[in-house]
C-alpha cells in the first residue's frame, strides 16, 4: 500500500502545530488560557500525522465561504 498524507485530501484543511509566539498573542487577544480553546484528541489521525503532542495547539487553516480563509486553534488533549 502506498503511503499518502491525510493533508493532501481536499476535504481536510491544513493543520500545523501553532507557533508559540503567535499563540501567545492569540491567547492574549482573547484573554484566555490554552484550556479554553476548543480541544482535539491526540489520537485524532490528523494530529498523529503532524506529530503534535498533548499540550500543543494545532492551528487549522480552513476555507471559509464568508471570509475566504479562517484560522482555528485547537488544544491537543489526551
Amino acid at each position: 500500500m502506498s503511503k499518502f498524507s491525510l493533508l493532501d485530501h481536499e476535504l481536510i484543511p491544513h493543520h500545523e502545530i501553532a507557533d508559540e509566539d503567535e499563540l501567545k498573542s492569540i491567547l492574549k487577544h482573547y484573554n484566555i488560557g490554552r484550556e479554553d480553546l476548543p480541544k482535539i484528541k491526540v489520537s485524532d489521525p490528523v494530529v498523529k500525522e503532524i506529530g503534535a503532542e498533548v499540550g500543543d495547539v494545532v492551528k487549522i487553516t480552513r476555507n471559509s465561504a464568508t471570509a475566504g480563509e479562517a484560522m482555528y486553534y485547537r488544544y491537543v488533549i489526551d
Partner: protein
Amino acid sequence: MDNSIPSIPKRIGSIQFGLLSPREIRKMSVTSIITADTYDDDGYPIDMGLMDLRLGVIDPGLRCKTCGGRAGECPGHFGHIELVAPVIHVGFNKTIRKVLRSVCSNCSRLLLEDKKKQAFLEQFAKLEDMTHLPDAVINEVFKEARKTKVCPYCDHEQSEIKFEKPTDYIEDGHKLTATEIRDRFEQIPDEDIKVMGMNPATARPEWMILTVLPVPPVTVRPSITLESGQRSEDDLTHKLVDIIRINQRFQENRDAGAPQLIIEDLWELLQYHVTTFFDNEVSGVPPARHRSGRPLKTLTQRLKGKEGRFRGSLSGKRVNFSARTVVSPDPNLSINEVGVPLAIAKQMTIPVRVFSRNLELMRAYIMRGGEEHPGANYVIRGDGRRIKVTEINKEELAEKLELGWIVERQMQDGDIVLFNRQPSLHKMSIMAHRVKVLPDKTFKLNPAVCPPYNADFDGDEMNMHVLQTEESRAEASILMQVQENILSPRFGGPIIGGIHDHISGMFLLTRNEKHITKNEALELLRKAEIHNLPEPAGYDKDGHPFWTGKQIFSQILPDGLDLEFQANVCNKCDTCKKLDCEYDAYVVIRNGELIKGTIDEKAIGAFKGMILDRITKKYGSAAGAKFIDDVTKLATRGVMKTGLSFGISDEDIPREARLNIDEEIAKAEQDVADLIRAYENKELDPLPGRTLDETIELKIMQTLGKARDRTGAIAGNHLGLENSAVIMAKSGARGSMLNLTQMAACVGQQAVRGERIRRGYAGRTLPHFDKGDLGADAHGFVKSSYKSGLNPTEYFFHSIGGREGLVDTAVRTSQSGYLQRRLVNALQDLEVQYDGSVRETRGVIVQFKYGEDGIDSTKSDYNDPATIHKIVSSVTGKEVE
C-alpha cells in the same frame, strides 16, 4: 409588598443527585400507608389511608397533622408503603441490566481485573478535572466487564443474562426474581460500585429494586369534588389503591401458605402495578386504564412531553398583560404602529408611579375611571394595597392620591407594546410597535410588516404584550422596534417592504409619462404629508400644469440619494442599454430624483427592495421607516387612481393565439411520438450515465416542458402589458408568468417526485390508455388551460400532482419544526462576545470570529463583502478593484 410570598428560609449550596434508599424513604415518611381506603362515610380522611391527614391537606378547614398548616400553606409530606416483596423500578431497567451483566453471579464482584479497575478510576478522575461527563467511560466499563466469561476472583463461569420486556431477567432459562437480583447487588463491594460510575454513599445498585414505595403527598394528587358532591380521585391515587390492595392480598396469601404458583402470579401483579405507577407507557406492558377506558396519567406521563411538567409548566409560561385577536391591514398606519381595539386598550394597563410632576395628570386619569378611555383601572397605595377604580370611588381616590402611589393607567396612543405572531421562528416574529387606539375589534397593522411575521389577513390572530417597566420600554424601543428590524440578519437586505398592491400601485404610477394634474398630485401625496409640489413637468395645451408619476414618487425619496439598478421588469438583454432601455427597466435616481425607470418589486419590495435597502443603510432606520410609510400611503392611492382588477375575461386570448397554442402542442406531441418511435426502434442514444428508459423519460419531459413555455409566451404576447395579471407578474407584485400560462394557455406536465405519473394499473396509468403507452396524455400532460377546463383524465392527473404538493407541505412543516427545535436547543447559549468571538457559557470558544469573518450581516449589502468597495468609491469617486 404582598405578604403571601414567604421569604426563602435557606439558600441552596449544592444539589446531590442519587437514588432514594429504603432507609431514606422511611426516614422522610410521616406514616406507613396500610389501607387502600381514602375517606370514611363522613368524608373524613382515614388514618393510615391514602388521604391521611399527616400527608398534608387539600380540603379547606382541615389542618395538617404534621406541620399544622392549612390547605395552601402545607406543602405536603411523603408517606410510604412497605412492599411485601421487592419489585424492580422500571426507570432503572437499563442500569439494572448493565450492572447485572457485569457482576459475578456467584461472588457479586465486578468482572474486571484489579488493574483495569484502577485504570478506569484514573480516567474518571481526569475527566472530572476537565469537568467532562464520564458517560462514555462508564459504558466502556460495562462493555469490558460483559466480555469476561469467568470471574477473575472466584473462577465462577458466567452465563448470559437475557432481558425480556418489561421486567424479566432470564439466566440459563430461569427467571431471576427481584429478590435474587437485589441479593446480588447487595454483595457488590463499594470499590466496584465506584468503577461503575456510581457513588455508593448516595446510589447503591440494590436501591434500584424497591422494597419500600414512597407515597407522594396528597397535594401532588388532589381529589376533585364533582358538582354532584361525589369525590373523584387523582390517577395517582387510583394507582396507589391498586398497589396497596395487591400488596395486602400478597401478604395474606403468603401467610396462609398459598401455592408457589399463586404467589408468583401475585408478585407479577404487584410488579405490574408498581411499574405502571411510575410509567404507564412502558412498551410490552398494557397501560393501566381508568373505568372509562382512558389510560391513567401516572408519574412519567406527568413529566414527559410537550404538555409535561418541564416543557409545559416550567419552561412554558403563561403571562398577564397580553391580548390576542384577529389582525387586519391598515396602510395608513406607520409600520411602527399597531392599531389596538378600544375594548382591549381599556383592559390593558401600565403602572405609573406618582410624582409631584405627574400628580395632576394621574388625578385626571383616575377621575375618568375605568369606563372612559384613557382612564385608570387600579391604584396601588403606598402600603401596597390594590384598589380598583370604580364609578363610585373614583373621585374619592383622585382626591386621596399621594406621591409614591402607583396608578395603573389604561394604554393609550404612543405606548410601546410587543407584537407577536406564532410560530416565533426568528427574532422578527416579536417586534415592538407603538399603540394607536382605534375602534373596531381587530389589531391593525401596516401590510408592509406582514413578511417578517409571515402574516396574512385570512383570519390570522396575533398577540400583544404590554410592557410594564421603564427599562423594558427603553430596551424594546431601541432594539425591537419595527424600524430597527427592517434589515434582516439572514441576508442583510430589507425584510420589511412593499407587497402586492404597494408594488402594483407604484408600478402603475411610475410607468410611462402620464400627465397628472395638480389636484391629482396633491391627492396622491396628501397622506405622505408633502404639501409642496416641484416644478411641473410641462403644461397641457389648455395651459394647466401637469406632473409625471416619476416626479410624484421622487417626492418621497430623501435628498441626495443616488442609485442605479435594473428593475424587476428588466428583460435581461445581452447588453444592457442602461439609460436608453426601451422598456424603462433601468432605474436611475440622482440626488433624490427618479430620472428613469419604473418602480417595482426590485425597488421597494420586501426581500429585494434596492431603494429601501439603500435608504435604511444610508439615512438610518427612521428614514427607512418613513419611506416605507410613505410608499404604502402613496401606492395605495396610486393603485386606486387607475384601479386594478382581474376577472376571467382577462384570461381571454384571441382565436389565432388559441390556434397557435394548439399547433404548438400538436407539434410537441408529434415530437414525443417521434421520440417514442426512435426508442422502440432502439435508435435512441442514451444520455451519459442514464439508462435508455431514463433517457426517453427525460427527453419527453424536456420536449413537453419547452412546449408549455412556448404556449405561455404566445399567450403572454397576446395578453399584452396592459393586462392586470401581466402587470402584477412583471412588476413582481403577485403571481408569475407561469401562473398566467397555466390559466390562459396550457397547464402542462403533472409530476410526482419530479417524474411523469406512472403509477396506476399494470403497464398504464388509467384504463383509458393502452398498456405501454408512453405518450404525453397517458402520463399526466395537461393540454388544457385552467380557463378552458380540464378533461376527466387530465383532472385526475392534476389531482395526483396537487395532492403530492399538499403532502409535501405537511411533511415539511413538521420536519423543519423539529429540526428548528433541536438547533435552538443546541445553540441557545452561544453568545457573540465584545471581542468578536463566539463562546458558550463556560467561556470556551466556539468560533474565533463570528461567522469566520466577524461581519454583522445587517450592516453589509446582502452579505456581499464588497460593501467596503462601494463606500470607498462613493467617497473617493474612484472605482475599486
